[in-house]
């Protein structure tokens, strides 16, 4: 008698082998594996369908109609889309959104990543510091907007102007939210402040995952802290920073709350993003169809940004 059992494994044995609680060997599963998976996924599919798929389909449907206030809707086909791309206000918001998104991502990720690298040299001692910075990520964007309104207020009542005056730089004090460029920069700073916690957290986790032996070897070879940071920590923490870039890009593309609170899109629409345009058209002017078309354009933008990143992550998972 051979020592090796050559019989075919009973149904469910494969699952049991992987550690999942499949039926005991010799017992038939009462439901096929695929049906079980489908049953378990059904609540998620239902929830996702109701909260994501249905609103998207409905928004797409509305985008083909002209709906003004409580008046009777009128089917207009692709007119809303054609109008959008000949509307200088909308085209302006696309440009503003691009500057805002890139600006916020660069500022937030650079600061978050740099702080994460610096904190890695003394992780325990900087834990409170990291917690404080990460806390900004927990503050809602609307609240962040109100906090920064106080900072950017015109006159000495504004914290920034008051500080400039206090240190003898009163000439630099100005109504920060009153100029087209300064308002956009102020908006980027506020949004980056609000977002910096996430890049910090993700980059720090990446830095912490670097094997200690590599850093110790570099130290033994006489590498200086700056060289270690530049040649070892930066490249090896890149995956965390990449995820941070992706998530910050996505949230900045959809920015609305912070714009609404801080600048209301002004002065003279200089800080109006696509998210704010969508709100203004849909909710204050109640051009639901036109606003829905802008929403679909924003959705396409978000998909364009997220698809390559998701594809790459999925490939990595394989």
């Amino acid at each position, binding site marked *: 008698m051979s020592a090796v059992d050559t019989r075919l494994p009973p149904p469910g044995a494969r699952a049991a082998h992987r550690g999942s609680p499949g039926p005991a060997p010799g017992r038939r599963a009462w439901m096929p594996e695929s049906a079980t998976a489908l049953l378990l996924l059904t609540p998620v599919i239902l929830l996702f369908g109701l909260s994501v798929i249905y609103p998207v389909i409905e928004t797409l449907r509305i985008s083909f109609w002209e709906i003004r206030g409580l008046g009777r809707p009128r089917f207009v086909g692709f007119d809303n889309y054609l109008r959008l791309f000949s509307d200088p206000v909308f085209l302006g918001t696309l440009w503003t959104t691009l500057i805002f998104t890139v600006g916020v991502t660069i500022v937030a990720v650079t600061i978050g990543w740099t702080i994460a690298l610096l904190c890695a040299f003394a992780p325990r001692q900087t834990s409170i510091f990291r917690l404080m910075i990460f806390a900004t990520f927990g503050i809602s964007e609307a609240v962040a907007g109100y906090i920064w309104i106080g900072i*950017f207020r015109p006159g000495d009542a504004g914290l920034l102007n008051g500080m400039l005056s206090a240190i003898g730089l009163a000439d630099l004090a100005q*109504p920060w939210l009153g*100029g087209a460029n300064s308002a956009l920069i102020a908006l980027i700073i506020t949004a980056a402040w609000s977002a910096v916690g996430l890049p910090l957290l993700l980059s720090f986790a990446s830095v912490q995952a670097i094997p200690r032996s590599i850093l110790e070897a570099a130290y033994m070879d006489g590498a200086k802290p700056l060289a270690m940071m530049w040649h070892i920590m930066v490249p090896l923490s890149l995956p965390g920073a990449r995820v941070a870039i992706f998530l910050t890009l996505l949230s900045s593309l959809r920015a609305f709350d912070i714009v609404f609170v801080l600048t209301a899109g002004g002065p003279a629409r200089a800080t109006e993003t696509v998210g704010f345009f969508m709100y203004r058209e849909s909710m204050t002017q109640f051009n639901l169809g036109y606003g829905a078309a802008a929403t679909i354009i924003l959705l396409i933008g978000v998909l364009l940004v997220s698809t390559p990143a998701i594809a790459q992550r999925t490939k990595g998972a394989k």
Partner: protein
Amino acid sequence: MRSYRTSTVVALGLGLALLGTSAFAEAAKDITLLTWLGGPDRKVLDTLVTGFQAKHPDYKVKINVVTSQGDARGGMRTALMGGEKPDLVTNTWPAFRKELADAGILRDVTPVWTSKGWDKSLAKTWRDISTTGGSVYGIPYIFGYRSGIWYVPADLQKIGLQAFPTSYDDFLATFDPLRKAGFAEPIAMPAKVYAHSEWFETLLMRTGGPGLVTDLGAHKIAWTDPKVAEALRQYARLFGAKCCGDSKLMYATHWDDAADRIFVERKANFLQIGMWINARAISQYHLKPGTDYSLGKFPALGRGFDNASIIDAKEILATGIGSNPDGADAFLDYVLSADGANIIAKAGFTTPSSSVDASIYDPVAAASVRFVNEGDVRFVLGDLLPGSLVDEYRLALQQFIGNPTEANIAPTLERIEAAAARAY
């Protein structure tokens, strides 16, 4: 056994029927009011409801609140499109009133107005501004004077004035001495969102009269009309006389910043905005109305319309989709009565109802009522114009104050007219 079952079923059926009847009877006494109002405005509604229910114990008023950010019309529309069937709705925009009427949601209360004698409580001008297409759909219950200028009497005393200037020329002439007296900006112009349009709108009223405001609101005349151009020219005179800070300061200023600069920082002197400054001055700045601060009547241009006022008003409209029109009418009647009007006045608001006990008002509120009663009233343009035009109108004015020259008058008005042509 069988007869026992039958009698049980019959008894249950009767019980259910009775329950149903009583539920129906109760529903018939319910009055539903749809509003977006919160804070002190909501508190007034709550107090009115309490007073009404005490007087009419057979009715129960249910207030459904729509939560909304920014322009509350969005939330109200969504609620109504989503199937809400209120008996009453609050409103503050004549343009929205028309939209609701066009959609068949409102009920004409003209016969009720006559039968309940609401003319005794509301002057003709209030009925006029409550009328849409010849029909009246409800009553105004709170108003705010928007042609008033907030100031600190002590500032004027510094330049030798004991009273607020009465003519526009005299008003402009205060700017230079005020600057010399150390004030950085005579007018704190809040141009961040909408408040810069307040000055223009009263000038429009003073230049062309109530008819011009009504016609412009309905787009019966073009924005390029010479009378509108003249109002904008008078507006430009403010800047020519160095009323304000630079455009960046104006664009960064919201009305609350402007109020702070006048009453807290003491760097500015004049602000034209609604009556909510009164509540802010008392509760936040702890100032005494009539002494520490005051409200001046917009100075006269001498063209025959100097007693007309721009106002904002909140109204309660009756709908035709609710289940209790009689209850709704009874509530409207109560709001206009002395009991209702006094509740509003005690809460610090001003009411158009002449049934109010005027001694309840503080000196500033009393002055605003006096100014309004001197002549015709019209709504602020922001409430009269269609939503899609309001933004463009305010933006065009915002850009005008960046370059308030004669050469920029025609392009500014042409831009608003182009937006108006699309909006109506």
